[in-house]
């Protein structure tokens, strides 16, 4: 029986394509803003929100976004990138929120397939997952279309941007919200932990030598799309889990990264 005779793979493939484009594009914005650690933070902060949302009977992704955003806001209120404690505080909140999530699951008496949340379960993805990915895609596109110049200015010189009347805090909040949305939307594709690879690796390949943020995002998305679809095909052919396959491909693709001698 050939899988091409069936239609079950169409929705997972579309999700793979959109995640493969969206995650690296988002990652490009974050890496150029030196906010990639925030991806790690938000992805670990999603779990308590998922658990609480399930317990309250609301959609888990809404809880996940709120919880991820809350973690980012807590971290931003306690520290900033210039602080020497920045990484330590970010990692403490990251571990604390993940621990909190694991603690409340039995306390709330709910059942969560932790493996699927953390590492993805693409082959069981449904139209709801696709819709979530499309919403994240549209919100990200809106942010880029209406805030492109501001994103560039803040990434280049946040103090100067603030002095020129740009609301840097609001922009950072919008970036955190969109990051949380992208992470939750990619939950089915690669899981909230393995999404870190898809947000980082194609970005490293795309940003190098790109003359503008726009070109860097397009290049990253092309790399991301290629890695995601290849990972998806490999997982189908060899009956593997797509999330980990995509993550491993991300690591392998690092061999194409040229070492910058100036660093």
């Amino acid at each position, binding site marked *: 029986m050939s899988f091409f005779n069936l239609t079950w793979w169409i929705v997972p493939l579309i999700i793979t394509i959109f995640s493969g484009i969206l995650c690296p594009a988002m990652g490009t914005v974050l890496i*150029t*803003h*030196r906010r990639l650690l925030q991806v790690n933070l938000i992805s670990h902060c999603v779990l308590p929100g998922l658990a609480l949302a399930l317990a309250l009977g609301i959609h888990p992704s809404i809880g996940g976004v709120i919880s991820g955003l809350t973690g980012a806001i807590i971290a931003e209120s306690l520290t900033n990138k210039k602080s020497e404690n920045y990484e330590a505080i970010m990692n403490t909140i990251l571990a604390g929120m993940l621990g909190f999530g694991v603690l409340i699951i039995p306390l709330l008496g709910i059942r969560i397939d932790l493996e699927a949340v953390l590492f993805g379960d693409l082959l069981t993805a449904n139209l709801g997952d696709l819709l979530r990915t499309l919403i994240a895609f549209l919100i990200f596109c809106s942010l880029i*279309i*209406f*805030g*492109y*110049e*501001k994103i*560039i*200015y803040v*990434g*280049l*010189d946040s*103090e*100067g941007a*603030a*002095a*020129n*009347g*740009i609301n840097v805090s609001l922009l950072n909040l919008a970036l955190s919200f969109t990051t949380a949305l992208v992470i939750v939307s990619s939950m089915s594709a690669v899981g909230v932990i393995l999404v870190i690879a898809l947000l980082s690796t194609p970005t490293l390949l795309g*940003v190098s*030598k*790109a*003359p*503008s*943020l726009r*070109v*860097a995002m397009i290049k990253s998305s092309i790399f991301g799309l290629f890695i995601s679809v290849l990972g998806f095909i490999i997982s189908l052919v060899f009956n593997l889990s797509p999330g980990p396959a995509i993550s491993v491909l991300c690591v392998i693709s690092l061999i194409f990264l040229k070492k910058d001698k*100036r660093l």
Partner: protein
Amino acid sequence: MSSLIAHNLSYSYSKNSEPALTKVSVEIKPGTLTALVGPNGAGKSTLLRLMKGQTSPDSGEITIDGEILNKSSTQVALMPQRSSMNWKFPITVEKLVSLGQIKKTKSRNSLPFQIKDLLSRPKTWVNKCCEIEASMQRVGISNLAKRRLDSLSGGQQQRALLAKTLMSSAKIFLLDEPCSALDPPAREEFLKIVRQIADSGLSVFISSHDWGSSLNAYDRVVVLDKRILATGTPNVIQERLDDICCLKDKTLCDC
């Protein structure tokens, strides 16, 4: 032509901390090139931020042509220190310079407005491009327009940043340690450019660590170490150098 007067400015970063500035008074006259010199921690950057209106002083006031400076004033432009810039950001020199216009066209800088602008007012759009080109020409980096920022030398990066700052409609330009990472030829070149800017009638106020012969490139020198230690022409300041150093237990001479 605008003149800026800072009168009796005092500022502390927190209630219990030592004041960063105490009763500082400075005047920036139109068309002058002024150096603000002092050791590390003297409060140079703090004073520039106050003069830009980014921070409010605890006491004292800043006026431009007799009017109190407010936060949204477009009369003053500040070129930040090298260290506050993300030089690895993927951006060309041309695009960086265009960002200097962001305040002028603040509500219309998103992509839909840019396209609308281009279609409805092609003349304005062309003018904008001419302004960018003119600003790059002014600092001698037109040939670098398409180059990525991180592929430039330190001196070229500083000139690109100056071109961006010059895009604003300000009459008073505050430059925060623009020569700090430059070698002597690049520093000399940079000072030549700012001299031309001052000669065109704009006021340039530069903070610097450089306490040597390059002071002669300026019209006036202000020596700051949390308070004003001396003000005058470069010759007067250099003659009084020993006295100024004595005042500060020689710390200024070490910088």
